[in-house]
């Protein structure tokens, strides 16, 4: 216990903590982000209604406007959609899916990127050439285009019965594969520096195997910048998922993410029922903006070149 408080005290006295305390916008963004994560994680308990329980839905309550406009009721703060589902609750549940997909996609591309980057940097030669060329080719196309194609083709190729339930994994795969290059490039660069250092030579002399040197000795020394990139990547991944879902290629209506909710509400926009799509949209902007602000700040603080 004393060790823990000691660690906390050390952290509070660190340069990093000081920089955090002295930048109000970042504190604000972090609070917003944590609040959103809390709403998403605790959706089962704090959401006023359960949008997935047909028994609680009443078709008479459909398309109600938010509480402050004419015809709105306090029962549904942000109004209801065309099937009488509470928008606020749908947002909580939708945000959970958006966050899960985003996190998993980033984790996936970090894994691919780090492994390929380590291989390219450590082994060099043709391994390096093949991996990096592949990365170059992929970089000449925008991420969203690549995710779009992987997702589109996967959607068609899968057996119809599996399509709906596998969407979650397909979207993660599509976004993950589309975004590995930046991680691989960073890790490759630092691996090439690290592998010439004495501790790697020492490990080699002690007959430690190549894979073990890479994974237990070099990897921990290259992971720092990756974490920063991953934070920024989370914003991009959440946004990419929203775009795919908006185009009808992402999460299905049975498992709606924020993008799916916006897509569903888009058809009703022309009849003036703006709250069905724009509140989920606002939640999405808030989520992405807070993630990006924290990411930008981390990059500035942890990047020694910018100091």
């Amino acid at each position: 216990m004393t060790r823990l408080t000691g660690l906390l005290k050390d952290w509070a006295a660190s340069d990093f903590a000081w920089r955090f305390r002295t930048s109000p916008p970042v504190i604000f963004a972090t609070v917003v982000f944590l609040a959103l994560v809390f709403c998403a994680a605790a959706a089962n308990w704090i959401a006023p209604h359960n949008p997935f329980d047909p028994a609680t839905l009443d078709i008479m309550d459909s398309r109600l406007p938010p509480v402050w406009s004419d015809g709105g009721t306090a029962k549904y703060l942000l109004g209801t959609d065309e099937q009488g589902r509470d928008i606020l609750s749908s947002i909580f549940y939708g945000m959970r899916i958006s966050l899960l997909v985003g996190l998993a996609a980033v984790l996936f591309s970090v894994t691919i990127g780090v492994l390929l980057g380590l291989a390219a940097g450590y082994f060099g030669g043709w391994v390096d050439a093949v991996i990096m060329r592949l990365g170059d080719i992929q970089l000449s196309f925008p991420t969203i285009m690549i995710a779009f194609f992987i997702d589109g083709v996967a959607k068609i190729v899968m057996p119809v019965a599996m399509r709906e339930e596998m969407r979650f994994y397909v979207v993660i795969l599509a976004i993950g594969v589309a975004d590995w290059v930046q991680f691989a490039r960073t890790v490759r660069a630092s691996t090439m520096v690290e592998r010439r250092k004495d501790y790697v030579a020492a490990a080699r002399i002690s007959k430690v195997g190549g894979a073990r040197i890479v994974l237990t000795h070099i990897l921990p020394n290259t992971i720092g910048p990756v974490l920063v990139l991953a934070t920024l990547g989370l914003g991009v991944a959440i946004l990419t998922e929203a775009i795919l879902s908006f185009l009808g290629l992402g999460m299905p209506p049975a498992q709606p993410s924020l993008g799916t909710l916006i897509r569903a509400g888009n058809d009703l926009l022309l009849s003036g029922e703006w709250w069905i799509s724009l509140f989920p949209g606002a939640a999405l902007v808030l989520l992405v903006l807070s993630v990006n602000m924290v990411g930008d700040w981390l990059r500035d603080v942890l990047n020694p070149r910018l100091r």
Partner: protein
Amino acid sequence: MISLLATRLTSVVLVMLVVSGLSFCVFNFLGDPVNNILGVNATLEQREELRVALGLDQPTIVQFWRFVERAAVGDFGVSYRNRQPVIDLMLVRLPATLELVLAATLTALLVGIPMGIYTALRPRGLLSRVVQLVSLLGISMPQFLIGMLLILVFSVELRWLSAFGRGETVQIGWWTTGLLTTSGLKALIMPTITLAVFQISMIMRLVRGEMLEVFRADFIKFTRARGLSDRAVYLTHALRNSLLPVITVVGLQVGSLIAFAIVVEAVFQWPGMGLLILQAIEFADFPVMAAYLAFVGFSFVTINLIVDMTYLLVDPRMRVK
């Protein structure tokens, strides 16, 4: 310079090879050309005959070469969905997308560069701060939301602009243009703004950053020492030197505009290539998907190459190396 050109060209060939390989896979392995032509009720003999006639009994590499040969002259077969040659479908949709992308690029340049210059010259002005804040929002907001907000305000509330379609178009040869009619131009307004907002923010931030950087350079101090007017210092010397990265980014952004045009076309039901590919995915129309893939690959490679060439023209330092 020759060696630079050579490496660029090798990478172009490499990218095109990979893209046409993928496109071939979509066309050949995902779609079944025999089923497509004969339908599912044909006999085995008929199928075998057609397979031989189409060259599907040949080794894959030969088939790939044939695919590339045909693709080079624009022959991507027949659409599964509406039985028209794919190339015709693409050519009908191409003008809509290109006009949209072109309009968005011009808007982004014409708005973004002046805004960037202004915010660099008056970094502490009120207007600059407002512009900066708005641009942060422009970068974080997904395009489809911007489009939906515009529709809500200008179509639903004010009823000024139509929320979907291209308006009236005029046929010039095979090219249908919406630029010559009033309704066509009005229809272009909202999609263009939607597509351009991100680019405007991007270009503005870039120009601002570069100009602030250039202001610190010695040659700017020297222009001041020579007693040149503010106008000459800012617009002739500083701006020119800060536009170099802008060229790269704008070039690369034109590429991503083609990608984001899919989203904008979906929001405004703009009858371009984006809607075409979305429908193709929905109906598993593989020839159209293969053709779109090839089109995207080709346009990106071309854009990247043009950007590199412009660099050579604009920056004398590149030529010396």
